């Protein structure tokens, strides 16, 4: 079975794009990825497009914008893991031997579809009693504070760190650093989470070109990054109430990825994790086994997760700083890791990074721990 390699990446600036749409943004990202790969667009054999709220056949509208017709294309929806799922599907098509060159695109024009707090699907019994995504994470934050003694200031430092990283990322939604005091003084959204603990409503798109071993040798020009694992799981149905301060779904998805890639968590040199809220980053990195349970807040305080720290987390700025265009997010994480591993990350470059991990987790459905979780491991 062939390995899968990323030979080109592209992404739009993340932020508010009132005069554009999801297809337009997706097309810009795809064209940049093709140009970065240095390939003739006619070599692309298939495409997958991840988005959540953009309506029917958004992926086909992207291909039409760039003159690429006739390809097999699937639109995939897995809530906030939609883009990451597109990458996984692309990698499976290559592993299966069906295609040698596949494009994965993630896009979202969220500002035209949504404002305020994201909620589960209206059909869900929890949406019917007032569930919002910030409230769900706020409840987990309160429980985590109660169990592990995390302070409100420690939680704020996650957002401060990611906004600092975003300030060094020209494509990030937010370019201004914030302070712990500003996080604490920002408007309460769902106690104990404030506005600056929450990822913004963002428009943006990202794309990656994935190839087989054979094509990587021919086209790679020494810039390929190997996608050593791309795993996806759905949360289990609880048969009894379980801890909400640990993520068995993240753990299971990560363990499968470590096994597939043949690397352990101690070998990860940089990670992009799904920090839709400040508390989410805490739960993610501990579920991934990158930090011990209960210890991440103090590690952030000591600077261990900074660029230049023991294990930089979300050097792109993460969802809190770079922004969170739902479908675009999972692909944008891979764009960041590819640029980090190639040494092309500019002011936020992590010295000597060779193995990177990306984690997405999206969706809320009653009775299951999480809807869709993905882990990608990239090796240079």
């Amino acid at each position, binding site marked *: 079975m062939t390995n899968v390699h990323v030979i080109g990446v592209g992404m739009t600036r993340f932020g508010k794009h009132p005069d554009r749409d999801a297809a337009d943004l997706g097309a810009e990202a795809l064209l940049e990825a093709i140009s970065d790969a240095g390939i003739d667009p006619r070599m692309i054999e298939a495409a997958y497009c991840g988005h959540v709220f953009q309506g029917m056949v958004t992926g086909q509208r992207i291909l039409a914008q760039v003159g690429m017709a006739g390809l097999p294309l699937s639109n995939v929806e897995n809530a906030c893991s939609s883009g990451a799922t597109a990458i996984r599907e692309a990698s499976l098509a290559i592993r299966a031997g069906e295609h040698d060159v596949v494009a994965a695109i993630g896009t979202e024009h969220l500002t035209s579809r949504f404002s305020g707090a994201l909620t589960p699907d209206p059909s869900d019994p929890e949406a019917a009693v*007032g569930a919002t995504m910030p409230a769900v994470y706020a409840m987990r934050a309160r429980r985590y504070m109660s169990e592990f003694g995390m302070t409100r200031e420690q939680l704020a430092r996650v957002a401060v760190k990611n906004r600092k990283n975003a300030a060094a990322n020209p494509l990030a939604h937010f370019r201004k650093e914030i302070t712990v005091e500003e996080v604490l003084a920002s408007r309460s959204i769902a106690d104990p989470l404030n506005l600056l603990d929450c990822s913004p409503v963002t428009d943006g798109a990202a794309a990656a070109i994935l190839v087989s071993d054979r094509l990587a040798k021919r086209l790679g020009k020494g810039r390929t990054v190997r996608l050593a694992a791309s795993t996806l799981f759905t949360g289990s149905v609880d048969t009894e109430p379980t801890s909400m301060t640990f993520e068995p779904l993240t753990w299971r998805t990560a363990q499968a990825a470590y096994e597939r890639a043949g690397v352990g968590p101690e070998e990860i040199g940089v990670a992009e994790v799904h920090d839709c809220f400040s508390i989410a980053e805490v739960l993610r990195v501990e579920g991934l086994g990158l930090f011990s349970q209960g210890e991440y807040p103090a590690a952030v305080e000591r600077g261990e997760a900074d660029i230049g720290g023991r294990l930089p987390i979300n050097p792109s700025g993460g969802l809190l700083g770079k922004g969170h265009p739902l479908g675009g997010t999972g692909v944008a994480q891979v764009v960041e890791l590819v640029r980090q591993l190639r040494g092309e990350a500019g002011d936020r470059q992590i010295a000597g990074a060779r193995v990177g991990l990306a984690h997405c987790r999206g969706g809320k459905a*009653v009775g299951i721990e999480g809807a869709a979780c993905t882990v990608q491991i990239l090796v240079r």
Partner: protein
Amino acid sequence: MVTTTDQATTPVSFRPGEFEVDPDGSGRILGSRCRACGAHFFPVRKACAGCLGTDLERVRFSTSGTLYTFSVVRQSTPAFEVPYVLGYVDLSEGVRIMSQISQCDPEEVTIGMELELAVEPFGESEDGTPLVGYRFRPAGAESRR
């Protein structure tokens, strides 16, 4: 037999598949119990996640629980007036139910507090019929009033 009087007085549930309202105005949250392994689920399921058996019975859950965690929600959709307290309530059957916590000062809500089911007005249907739904309130809140 449903009489005209019953139709006029029995409150209408906001989600009949998940919350059953009796003619006396009391109500119970509905779920499933696996007859093979005894596991309980909310909402009603078609198969058991524990043993994958399909011999499930519909059950009415107990009306008391313990608060696992909570948040005071200050930004929500237009369907909900803010602020409100949202929590996860653990029932003795081994299910965790998300519910609003009512009839108390948000400042007095604490993890681990004992709660009881409350049937309360919960919006209205598209044709304007008032609906009732479930919330939880501190245990004994009714008798203290």
